[in-house]
C-alpha cells in the first residue's frame, strides 16, 4: 500500500484513520493542504457556458486587456472533462437546462461553479415562461456575480473568491466537500418548495400574475402526462 492509502481524504484513511490521523488537522495535513490548494487555485480551468451578453464580458476577461491567464485560468476548457470551474454567463432557458446540468455532471471533481450576471443568478428581467429563475435550481453555485452584465473586473473578482474558497479547503473535509449523489443526476437541485419560494413574481410580473389568477405560482402544478417514469 502506497502513500495514497495513508493520506487523509485519499483511499480509506479519512474514515478508518491512517498514519495522518482521522481527519483532524495535523502538521502534515495542513502542509499538504497548502500544497494541494496552491496547485488547485492557480490552475483553474474555466468551462465557459456563455449564452448571452455576459459571455462577451467573459471573452473580454480572457483577452489581453484583462487576461485571466494571470490568475491561472490559462486555458478556456471547452470540454467539461478537463474543466474545474463552470462559468455560466447569461440567461438559461428551460430548454437549455438539461444541457447545463449534463455539463455540470460531466465535470470531474473537484469542481466549482460561478453564476455570472443577473440572469444566471436569478432570472434577471426575464421573469417569463421560458427562463430558468436562477441556475442554482439546476446546479450548485459557489459564487454569484451581480451585474448586467458584470464588468471583467467583477468576473476576475469572482474567480479570485473561488481561489480564496479553495485556499480555505482541507483534504480532511474531502468527503463532505465532494459529496455527490449519482442518483441526483438530471434532478432539480432545489426542492419544489424552494423553487416556488425563491421565484415569486416581481415587478411587472406581479401584475401579470394577478391577471392570470396566480396560476403561474400555485396553479396546476401537476400535468396530466408525466414524462418521467
Amino acid at each position, binding site marked *: 500500500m502506497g502513500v495514497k492509502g495513508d493520506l487523509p481524504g485519499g483511499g480509506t484513511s479519512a474514515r478508518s484513520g491512517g498514519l495522518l490521523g482521522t481527519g483532524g488537522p495535523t502538521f502534515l495535513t495542513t502542509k499538504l493542504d497548502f500544497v494541494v490548494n496552491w496547485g488547485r487555485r492557480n490552475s483553474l480551468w474555466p468551462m465557459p457556458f456563455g449564452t448571452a451578453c455576459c459571455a462577451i464580458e467573459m471573452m473580454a476577461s480572457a483577452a489581453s486587456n484583462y487576461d485571466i491567464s494571470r490568475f491561472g485560468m490559462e486555458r478556456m476548457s471547452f470540454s467539461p472533462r478537463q474543466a474545474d470551474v463552470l462559468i455560466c454567463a447569461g440567461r438559461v432557458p*428551460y*430548454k437549455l*437546462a*438539461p*444541457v447545463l*446540468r*449534463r455539463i455540470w455532471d460531466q465535470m470531474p471533481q473537484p469542481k466549482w461553479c460561478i453564476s455570472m450576471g443577473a440572469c444566471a443568478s436569478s432570472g434577471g428581467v426575464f*421573469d*417569463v*415562461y*421560458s427562463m*430558468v*429563475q436562477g441556475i442554482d*435550481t*439546476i446546479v450548485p453555485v459557489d459564487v454569484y456575480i451581480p451585474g448586467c452584465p458584470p464588468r471583467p473586473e467583477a468576473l476576475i473578482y469572482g474567480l479570485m473568491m473561488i481561489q480564496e474558497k479553495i485556499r480555505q479547503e482541507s483534504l480532511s473535509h474531502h468527503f463532505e466537500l465532494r459529496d455527490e449523489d449519482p442518483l441526483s443526476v*438530471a*434532478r*432539480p437541485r*432545489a*426542492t*419544489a*418548495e424552494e*423553487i*416556488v419560494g425563491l*421565484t415569486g*413574481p416581481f415587478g*411587472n*410580473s406581479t*401584475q*401579470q*400574475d394577478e*391577471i*392570470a*389568477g396566480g*396560476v*403561474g*405560482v*400555485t*396553479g*396546476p*402544478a*401537476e*400535468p*396530466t*402526462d408525466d*414524462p*418521467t417514469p
Partner: protein
Amino acid sequence: MTDHVKDGLDALDEGPRPSDAIAPGPSAPEANRNEHPSVAALFERFGRSVVHHEVVSGGQHVVHVEPGRNVEILTWLRDDPEHRFDLLADVTAVDLGGGAPIQVVYQLFSIPHRRALRVKCLLPLDALEVDSVVPLWNTANWLEREVYDLFGVTFRNHPDLRRILMPHDYAEGHPLRKDFPLRGRFSRAEQTRRALAQDVDRFYIPAERAVGREPQEVFFPESPEADADEATRDET
C-alpha cells in the same frame, strides 16, 4: 392606470372568446388601391376574396385576404410575371387579444420588381387553421412551425408540423397568445422538473439540424421498432 389600459387588462383577464361576439373592424381606412400595382391587380382578379387594403408605416401596403384562398392568391402573386413575389421574407402572426381573430402575416418581396407586399389572413379563434405555403416557398417550413408553436395556428398539409422553439413536450400551450400567463401555466418547480426530464440525447441528435432527411418519422420515436429504424439509418 388609464381606462384604455384597464380595458385591455380586463380583456386579458377574461381570455379570448370566439370572434363572432365582436366585429373586428379594420384598423386603418381603406387606401387607394391604385398606388400599388399588385394590389390593384389583386382586386381585379380575386374581387371579393381580397377583403381589405390599407397602407401602414408610411408606404407598407397590407391586403387582407380570405383564409380559404390564401394558397391560390399567393401562388398567383408568386408566379404571375407582372408581380413575381419570389421572396417570402417572413411568416408570422399577431394576436390582438380580447377575442379578436389571430392574423397570419405573409411578408412578400418581389426581387425583379423591387416591390413589397404584406398579406394577412384573419383566423377566428375557434377555427385556427390555414393552408400551408411550404409548397410555394420552402422557407415557410420553419416559419410556419414557429407560428404553430407560439400561436397554435395549424397549417394544413405542412410536411413536418411540430414545435420548433419550445421543448417538444411542452404542455402549457402557445406562449405568444394573449391569454397565456407571462410566467407560464405550471409552477416554477414543475417547469424545472419537466425541463430537466427532457431527453437531451434524442432532442439534439444531428438529424435535428438536417433539412430534407425525411425527419418526421425519425424524430422522437415512440416504439422500440422506431428506435431500431433509427439505429439502422445511422449505420448506413
